[in-house]
């Protein structure tokens, strides 16, 4: 108490001292805050920013693994890599992203609505089972389905034969490979979307839904005119997060098809990997990876804007 009055009196005595004290205090605090940040800044500078700049630098140079770094060649790597198979792999990546994310969303939103019904019994049991895939490594998921989709030894063609449906080539059939990969992706990734959408539904205010019910709206009307608009920001965030991760698809492709047959399932990430570590052309691989990074950054900025607005 006495201390406080003392300080106030001194401040009155010397005009400006209070401001100065405040400013130096603020500066001191700022330094403390950045000390908290320092380890993170140092680590991210060393392990993210530095490799990123190095790779960006390489993307403008000739670099074959066996020969090492060569001359500065401007945009040749970009032009070369983009002219080559880039169109094809971008198209595959876009199809994979679109169909996988769309299917995952429809299934996840439907299941989330069912799970959110107030009178539902065994809710916990369903949730436990439906969340299992979230924690599985894509490698395990891929292997599981490789065994089951094996045309000769797999269980799926056998089950189909019981239903008088002819067996398919699945991953080996150029027309079937991408849809089969999408199926595996949907099996694996729907859980995460379901979790996010279900958490979103649970956080919705109940008043507007009650009001609509009292006004005599049907179940479908409530979903379409009340729940969907309320869920809009969460739906957008969920879609963007999944789109970003689908665009990066690599693990499943590596394990299921290695991009084949031909290039039927080759994604941009796998293409960059193939250029760099099969054809040993690091320069071109780096160039492709930066094009992908550009797309991902644009979507991430979009995601941040949606998050901010709410």
């Amino acid at each position: 108490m006495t201390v406080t009055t003392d300080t106030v009196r001194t401040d009155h005595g010397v005009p400006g001292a209070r401001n100065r004290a405040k400013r130096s205090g603020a500066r001191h605090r700022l330094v403390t805050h950045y000390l908290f940040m320092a380890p993170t800044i140092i680590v991210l500078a060393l392990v993210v920013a530095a490799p990123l700049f190095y790779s960006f630098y390489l993307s403008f140079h000739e670099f074959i693994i066996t020969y090492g770094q060569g001359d500065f060649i401007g945009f040749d790597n970009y032009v070369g890599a983009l002219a080559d198979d880039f169109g094809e792999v971008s198209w595959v990546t876009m199809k994979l992203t679109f169909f996988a994310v769309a299917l995952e969303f429809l299934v996840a939103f439907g299941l989330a609505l069912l799970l959110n019904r107030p009178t539902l019994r065994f809710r916990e049991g369903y949730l436990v089972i439906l969340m299992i895939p979230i924690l599985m490594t894509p490698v395990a998921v891929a292997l599981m389905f490789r065994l089951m989709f094996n045309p000769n030894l797999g269980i799926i063609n056998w089950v189909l034969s019981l239903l008088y449906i002819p067996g398919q080539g699945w991953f080996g059939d150029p027309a079937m490979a991408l849809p089969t990969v999408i199926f595996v992706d949907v099996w694996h990734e729907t859980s995460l979307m379901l979790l996010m959408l279900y958490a979103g539904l649970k956080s919705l205010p109940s008043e507007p839904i009650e009001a609509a019910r009292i006004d005599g709206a049907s179940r479908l009307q409530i979903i379409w005119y009340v729940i969907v608009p309320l869920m809009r920001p969460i739906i957008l965030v969920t879609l963007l997060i999944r789109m970003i991760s689908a665009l990066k698809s690599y693990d499943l492709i590596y394990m299921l098809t290695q991009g084949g047959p031909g290039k039927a399932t080759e994604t941009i990430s796998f293409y960059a990997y193939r250029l760099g570590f099969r054809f040993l052309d690091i320069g071109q691989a780096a160039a492709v990876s930066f094009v992908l990074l550009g797309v991902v950054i644009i979507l991430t900025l979009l995601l941040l804007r949606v998050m901010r607005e709410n």
Partner: protein
Amino acid sequence: MIDEPKWLRVATHAILIFASAVILLPLLWVLRTSFADKVIAYKIPPDLFFTPTFDNYRDILLQFDFGSFFLNSLLIAVMTTLIALAIGALAAYVIDRHRTGGPVAPIAILATQMMPPIVLVIPFFLIFKKIGLTDTHAGLVISYLTFNLPYVIWLLMSFFKRVPRELDEAGLIDGCSPFTVFLRIVLPAALPGIGAAAVLSFVLCWNEFLFALMLTGQETKTLPVAISSLVTQQGTAIGAVSAATMLAITPMVIVYFAIRKLLVAGLSLGAVKG
């Protein structure tokens, strides 16, 4: 409560049971195959009942040395998680409380977390080769920090947000230093969140594939890489592959059942809210 037609209740359960079956049946099938001997594993039409054998598990543990790959995965995931938590908690705290780093900080964190791994694997592969970090545990831990540190910060930011600021202020007025306030007051208050972040970060490392594939060798292989090489080595050694797959999944499923509530809260928070 709310009256609803019977068909709706039946249809709801029918759909949910079908979805659960789609998830469970493949897992059960792999579990079944992991206990089958070679003849039964390849048999079509398959036998549903047979005498289970542990040969596949014995093979992958003794012949293919999966025990040490398991330990590699464990060691790398634990190390990465501890470092990321120690560093990330400090940063997440000041970003949440004082907006340190301004508007750039959250953007940089999120963008780093979203970065395609292929972008960083290329330079890491070259740099590690040059400085001898290829096929070392330390090397993989370093590369895992690239995605794990931002992920942990992002999660912890939202957990710290739930700790009332009045607690900090009370501590500061009592004369604690900012670090003491963080260590003694905020951290204990956010402990469940930190637990969730630790588990999620562990899972992320445990399941990672591309960095491990490119940066490890025989000595430091993690489980996903070991399983993937089992496939190419053995063609289709169905039983062994199934057993290895179960070995990779089981610890995660145990973690999941042990702390499901915490995990679900963390996952939805980290993913949905900012």
